[in-house]
């Protein structure tokens, strides 16, 4: 995709020797700088993304493919276990993003105010973001054990009979979402902290002169001016939530039954079972879901963005 007509040797004598008409043709910012990245990205990201549309219409063994029209999609949307993956994906993404927006803001408020141990608290909240998702998943699988787990033990102390988090079909998906929030809320929080800190102090001073209280400050200043941060948190957690796989796989493997299966885990299961065409159809569905949600949403949310 780059213009390779320009010779690749860094021509040291060129600048001195060619003051003529040739000089205009040679930008100091040559397009072939795109080339290494373009090759890797084109071959390993663009080509698979585009060919996925074709392969999702085939019965496919990697080595040869046979065109079967929309059969894979028919299978995908007929099989209840697969369709439920689609709804679970949406539930998971919406629940985790909403929780991260609310909790991220709630955590960022005290963490930008004058409290003791602020630096420590910020670090503690953020650190899970950097930890292995699989490690977190396995740890919480143990903590959420219905009979012996620490969470239900703790709830038992205050008289609450905790649910069977991961083994109860009603709660499995939401329990994983809860752990996702635990791990990811730190990123939302630091984004909000960056947003709140960048609000000029003059606004708060003017508000104080006008006799505004804490709630007014939040409602009239922080919330509107932290809007870019909110947009970022929503988009990032939706993108992450829609394609989420590793945490679910580490904790429930889509179970019990198919009650916590999402599209990404369906893709993996079909791949493992050797149904490459069906797996790729799942990938195309995921692609469509993500683009249908994220692109318009980012347009909509960014339209009225306050420039920071």
């Amino acid at each position, binding site marked *: 995709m780059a213009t390779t007509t320009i010779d690749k040797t860094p*021509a040291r004598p060129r600048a001195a020797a060619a003051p003529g008409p040739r000089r205009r043709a040679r930008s100091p910012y040559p397009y072939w700088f795109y080339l290494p990245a373009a090759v*890797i990205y084109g071959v*390993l990201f663009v080509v698979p993304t585009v060919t996925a549309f074709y392969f999702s219409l085939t019965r496919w063994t990697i080595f040869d493919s046979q065109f079967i029209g929309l059969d894979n999609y028919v299978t995908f949307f007929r099989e209840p276990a697969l369709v439920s993956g689609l709804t679970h994906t949406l539930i998971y993404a919406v629940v985790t993003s909403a929780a991260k927006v609310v909790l991220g803001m709630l955590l960022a408020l005290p963490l930008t105010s004058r409290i003791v*141990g602020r630096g420590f608290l910020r670090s503690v909240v953020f650190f*899970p973001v950097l930890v292995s998702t699989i490690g977190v998943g396995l740890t919480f699988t143990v903590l959420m054990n219905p009979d012996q787990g620490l969470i239900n033990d703790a709830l038992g102390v205050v008289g609450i009979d905790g649910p069977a988090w991961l083994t109860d079909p009603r709660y499995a998906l939401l329990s994983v979402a809860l752990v996702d929030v635990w791990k990811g809320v730190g990123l939302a929080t630091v*984004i909000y902290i960056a947003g709140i800190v960048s609000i000029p102090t003059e606004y708060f001073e003017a508000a104080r002169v006008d006799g505004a209280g804490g709630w007014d400050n939040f409602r009239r200043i922080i919330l509107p001016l932290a809007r870019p941060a909110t947009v970022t948190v929503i988009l990032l957690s939706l993108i992450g939530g829609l394609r989420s796989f590793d945490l679910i796989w580490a904790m429930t493997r889509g179970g019990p039954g198919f009650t916590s299966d999402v599209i990404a885990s369906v*893709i993996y299961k079909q791949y493992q079972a050797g149904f490459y065409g069906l797996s790729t159809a799942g990938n195309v569905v995921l692609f469509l879901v*993500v683009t249908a949600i994220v692109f318009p949403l980012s347009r909509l949310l960014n339209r009225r963005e306050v420039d920071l």
Partner: protein
Amino acid sequence: MSAAPNRGPRPNYLLSAVAIVAALVVFVVPFVFIVLTAVKDRRQASDFDFAWPERFQLVQNLVDVVQARDYLLIIAYINSTILTVASVTIMVITSAMVAYVLQRRRGRWNGLVDFLVLSGLIIPPAVVPTIWVLQRLGLFRTMSGLILVEVAFGLAFCVLLFRAFIATIPRELDEAAIIDGAGPVRLFFRVILPLLRPVIVTVVLVQSVFVYNDFVNPLYFLPGEQNATVQLTLYNFNSQFNTQYNLLFMDILLITIPPLLMFVAFNRQIVAGMTAGAIKG
């Protein structure tokens, strides 16, 4: 400089106390649990409780985990190190080149490149077709294949971070270097790249954490016991150590240490990188 709702002259001690206790319970207890379970003996570890270890088996558990499956963990650490170092290095250089030309030169490619960067941030990669491409290139089940895959999936985010930073470097600098007779390659590698050091540090840290913690791509593109990366050992050990939770948690502990060290050393840069890339979103 902090502009916040609660700007009294004194810290709010009540709020502080509540926040610290809540943070300890919610965010610190799980990590303490990991450490405690990792040093317990096998029988006590399977109780899953928060008790103090009756017998400390730190060394014993450590040796057991490292020796398991013919030192698989050592091989996995070597694999993960190669993967992280190689892919992050390639990512940094190639994406800095893209971001530089993209930021400096207004031309017919800009729209397309912007679109591709945005797509790279949003679109989930198509798994099996990627395997098909790798297979065709003879790179499936190879470390080089996985390295290139990580590069391809990480490029977009790097370009975003680099471009924002390059915009702050004055063009006069380029012009001065050109007048001094520097060609494009020398201009970029000798003049611009050294100035990118702060953002390179950020990109390296953030991407290292991503690649090191990546589970999905090694799972798909580098299957096979001897190829395991550290994240895959967790996954493999989980089935093997189903009754030996002390060893499983020792593995989790060992795998958590590298990010912890990085976080302690570079807390500020990591947070800056993750939020800077995000705010521009």
